[in-house]
């Protein structure tokens, strides 16, 4: 049996990737299951999905805590969360990264494969959705499933969900990644901070209220505390304001769904700690003063 954990962001298709991998393994005569981790995730928030493959019937139904392989769909996630948590010593991390495996640092020294999946996805698909790409990298790095089966799995799962034309493109993206994946060993020794106490206890709360504005060891909780959640890492494209062209019409300030554009004495300023890169500001700017750059 081998178990695979997918780390992605909502909207990158971690669940469809897990399903396609299971389908590919099934085509080769294995038993396979794929399932997501459910939570209140939105597009862009970190999410998990799992796949479990065995030659025999699978009776284990838990989430995967000690994976043999982890696949990371988003290049910024390895800096935010410990993606290698519980990863088997003989296992392997397959990462979306522009770096070589030797330049990556994870919790432990493990075999690592890297591929610049975002660039491949933008080239082949036109959108930064890296699920199919990473499956190609998985086939190359592990040799556990043939790339032909992966392509078939993508055609099955993607074809049923979003149509054959786009499925074909995704199969091509997987093949491209298969040819470009670098395999090596990463550095170990990366330390992730332990999570601090986040929830207040019932003794700290006034009667009849869930949370008032207060601070725990982990930071603010209660009204207005979402500022603790820096959403800037969700972004693929970044808006840049050209001060020369800006006419301060305030449309971007009005329309920004994050409210991360502020008026200052020195013109409008974007808070990149929070900007999710939706591009509404650039699209609505009447003076074309905002440009989205990678």
């Amino acid at each position, binding site marked *: 049996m081998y178990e695979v954990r997918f780390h992605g962001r909502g909207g990158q298709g971690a669940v469809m990737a897990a399903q396609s991998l299971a389908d590919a393994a099934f085509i080769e005569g294995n038993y396979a299951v794929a399932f997501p981790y459910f939570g209140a995730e939105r597009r862009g928030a970190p999410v998990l999905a799992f796949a479990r493959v065995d030659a025999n019937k699978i009776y284990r139904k838990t989430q995967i805590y000690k994976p043999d392989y982890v696949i990371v769909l988003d290049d910024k996630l390895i800096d935010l969360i410990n993606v290698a948590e519980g990863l088997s010593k003989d296992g392997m991390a397959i990462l979306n990264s522009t770096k070589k495996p030797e330049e990556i640092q994870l919790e432990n020294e493990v075999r690592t494969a890297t591929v610049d999946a975002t660039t491949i996805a933008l080239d082949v698909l036109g959108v930064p959705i890296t699920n199919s790409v990473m499956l190609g990298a998985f086939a190359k790095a592990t040799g556990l499933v043939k790339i032909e089966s992966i392509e078939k799995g993508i055609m099955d799962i993607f074809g049923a969900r979003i149509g054959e034309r786009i499925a074909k493109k995704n199969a091509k993206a997987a093949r491209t990644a298969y040819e470009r994946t670098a395999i090596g060993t990463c550095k170990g020794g990366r330390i992730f901070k332990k999570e601090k106490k986040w929830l207040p206890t019932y003794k700290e709360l006034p009667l009849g209220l869930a949370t008032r504005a207060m601070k725990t060891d982990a930071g603010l909780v209660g009204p*207005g505390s*979402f500022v603790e959640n*820096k959403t800037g890492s969700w972004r693929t494209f970044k808006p840049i304001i050209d001060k020369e062209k800006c006419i301060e019409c305030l449309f971007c300030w009005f329309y920004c769904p994050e409210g991360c554009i502020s008026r200052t004495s020195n013109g409008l300023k974007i808070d990149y700690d929070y900007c999710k890169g939706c591009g509404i500001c650039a699209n609505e700017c009447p003076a074309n003063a905002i440009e989205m750059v990678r």
Partner: protein
Amino acid sequence: MSLKIKDLPEENLFTKGHTACPGCGGAIMAKIAMKVFGKNTCAYFPANCLLVFGGTYPLNAFKVPYLHVLFENSAVCAAGIKRALNKLGKEDVNVVAFAGDGGTADIGIQALSGAAERNEDIIYICYDNEAYMNTGIQRSGSTPFGAWTTTTPVGSKIAGKERFKKDVPRIMIAHDVPYVATASISYPLDLLKKLEKVKNMKGFRYLQIFAPCPTGWRLDPSKTVEIGKLAVESGMWTLYEFENGKMTINKKPKMIPVREYLKPQGRFRHLTDEQIDILQELVKKKWERDLAMAESTH
């Protein structure tokens, strides 16, 4: 003097860091509504996206008292709180219920209708993204004809929703409440005027704000505001207000072909020419009906 964009305060009472999808129309609505209503407000939420991305315990994006109520009773909970505040002598607090279109048109409609009939002194805002987006894009009463959702899938026999959009603002007008209006996040001045009006009025006030959802509509996130404009220009969404028995159209649509509005959205990709013709005919009828009603009340 009506409110201008530049008059809005800098401080966001709906803070950044919330977990809405990039390009969320609902988040724009919440941010602007809170800027207008100000600190002296308390907010009530049935289950909806805004509740989840705006307040995942113990984090919370709202800087005002905030309560999650059940899906079916947002209007009546807000009404109860308003009465309690009145008893405490805090009569100037704005009590606002923020519900989605599912919580308004389907699940919440009996409490909404009851509160409207009693003319409770609350503001009820329905942000309309035309499906149950929070649970993963299921059809609601407010989903338009032909739209794909996970419960109106596209197959060989049925393609998208078969029924037309439920016209909740007209249902509210039938209650003869002091104020009913439709608005859109894509028309800032009209939106600000209406938000300011509901803030300063008494009695039951209903505002339905068109808030596109790029995730559920299969739309590029940067086009959220643009698609809102196309909705109004094509007549899919009419901006009007109903005040003291008189209905006024705020923006006369150019009636561009409805095809232009459908094109950028993946949820309408499967529509046949025949279905588009049905929708075009419906849009025309809806506009004529709205116009006739506006004329008959003056």
